[in-house]
């Protein structure tokens, strides 16, 4: 008969981080996610681009202009060319023009470029994540085979250990420290 001990950690005030319980699949996925984050290729980035394109439509296109005229103006009768007077001109004109392209709130042609980029980003993300998963499992397979091998020649053992170290280094170079990712998988 199974006996179970149930410990309520919060009630007894001893809540703590849980014991390691990650599976290989969960750990590999967590490492792949870390890789994608490190490369800045996460899907949120493409969504953010698209949102920025849409938000940009609320901002008008602004044109500012200033014009200043200096000079002298004369008043002349056109019939007999009599000159009535002359005065100087100092005229300042300021102009501000704001244009809202409301159609861009619904669809901005820039979205096409963003979607092309997000497709490229998705391809990069897929390649990166799959590489990370492949490296992770190649290393795990070597570790497992080493555990199962009864008596290995020292040379074979050294080569296996070197390959494991190589794979771990490649994974770390690609994804950064895997410790945090492993902790997240737990």
């Amino acid at each position, binding site marked *: *008969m199974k*006996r*179970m*001990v*149930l*410990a*309520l*950690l*919060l*009630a007894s005030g001893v*809540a*703590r*981080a*849980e*014991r390691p*319980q990650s*599976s*290989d*699949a*969960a750990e*590999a*996925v967590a490492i*792949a*996610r870390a890789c*994608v984050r490190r490369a800045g290729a996460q*899907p949120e980035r493409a969504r953010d681009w698209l949102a920025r394109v849409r938000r940009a439509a609320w901002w008008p296109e602004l044109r500012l202009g200033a014009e200043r005229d200096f000079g002298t103006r004369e008043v002349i009768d056109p019939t007999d060319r009599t000159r009535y007077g002359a005065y100087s001109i*100092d*005229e*300042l004109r*300021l*102009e*501000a*023009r*704001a*244009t*809202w392209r*409301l*159609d861009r*709130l*619904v*669809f901005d042609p820039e979205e*096409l470029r963003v*979607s092309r980029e*997000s497709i490229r*980003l*998705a391809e990069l993300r*897929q390649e990166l*994540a*799959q590489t*990370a*998963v*492949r490296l*992770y*499992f190649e290393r795990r*397979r070597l570790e*497992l085979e080493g555990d*199962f091998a009864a008596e290995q020649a020292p040379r074979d053992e050294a080569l296996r250990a070197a390959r494991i170290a190589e794979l771990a280094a490649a994974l770390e170079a690609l994804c950064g420290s895997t410790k945090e990712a492993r*902790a*997240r998988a*737990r």
Partner: protein
Amino acid sequence: MSIARAAAMPNRSCLTALACSSEDRSAGLYATIMIGLLLGTCASAQADAIARAGTVLWRADRSGLHRSQDEGLSWREVARVEEDDDSEDELGGCTAVAAEGPRVAALCAERLLQSHDGGSHFSNSPAPAHARRLSWQRGQLRLATSDDGVRRDGRWATRFDDGGAWISADGGASWRELPDAAAYDLIDVIPDGRGGAFAWTRVGLVRLRPEPPERDDGAASWTPRLDVLARQRWMDGFADTAIVGFLSFPLERPPATETWRRQSSMSTMRAEMRGRAARLRIVGDHVRRSSQHLSPRRRMLKQLRADELSAQAAVVMEAAP
């Protein structure tokens, strides 16, 4: 702690572990290694149930009850079940959890845990016999003896089985598919309260969302352009100001081919990746199943390959645009 346990949902690596540890007990070193290795695999993240109350997620699994306040990025153990057994066929740990506001209930080690303060304090009583599922309905705790795979959260409801997962925004009257579920081995799926779902899977917690409805962006070309002009003039002590607004409408509606192309390329790529992920998952399941009658070494390698395929399926799905 024993490795003997069969999870409620398929946890074939655990079942396999039992088979090989008993078969090869006489094989000395191999069996020892196997048990050591399998403890890692068997204790993999195979929760029986998850529940949500506001921003807090709860997870019940073989080791106990856990709480997350960051949408599953990290978990803290709230109740721990330590197993000390001689039998190998009994369900253990925490098998069900339900949450509603500050109320939480869980079935753990044949005990019913209840909290009314968000999990700060739990009461502990014997669990009713054959209780399998828990749910809160307007402050009342309901127990069920079977699991229909439907989880309700206000007007939201989710449903899942081997064929996929669905979400309803009207309490179950109509359902929309969560297509990305095809990439995962689902263990539990609950509404996230924002139109999607949290799914506990072989690779951990993932978010599932229904396909967004297609927008008719072609109508955009009818939308006008607004120009506002402000002009100020100073001359010889005089000043005048003018503010003028223009609305210009396009007379011709251009074809929306580019818009459609954008939509179709994104959705095609997503569908392709989803199909690829589903195939990887199915092959992974097949590899996992086919490993059961192999030698311990080959079985472990096959299990690892199955895990790799599950992980590949998950990352392909997560990479989709």
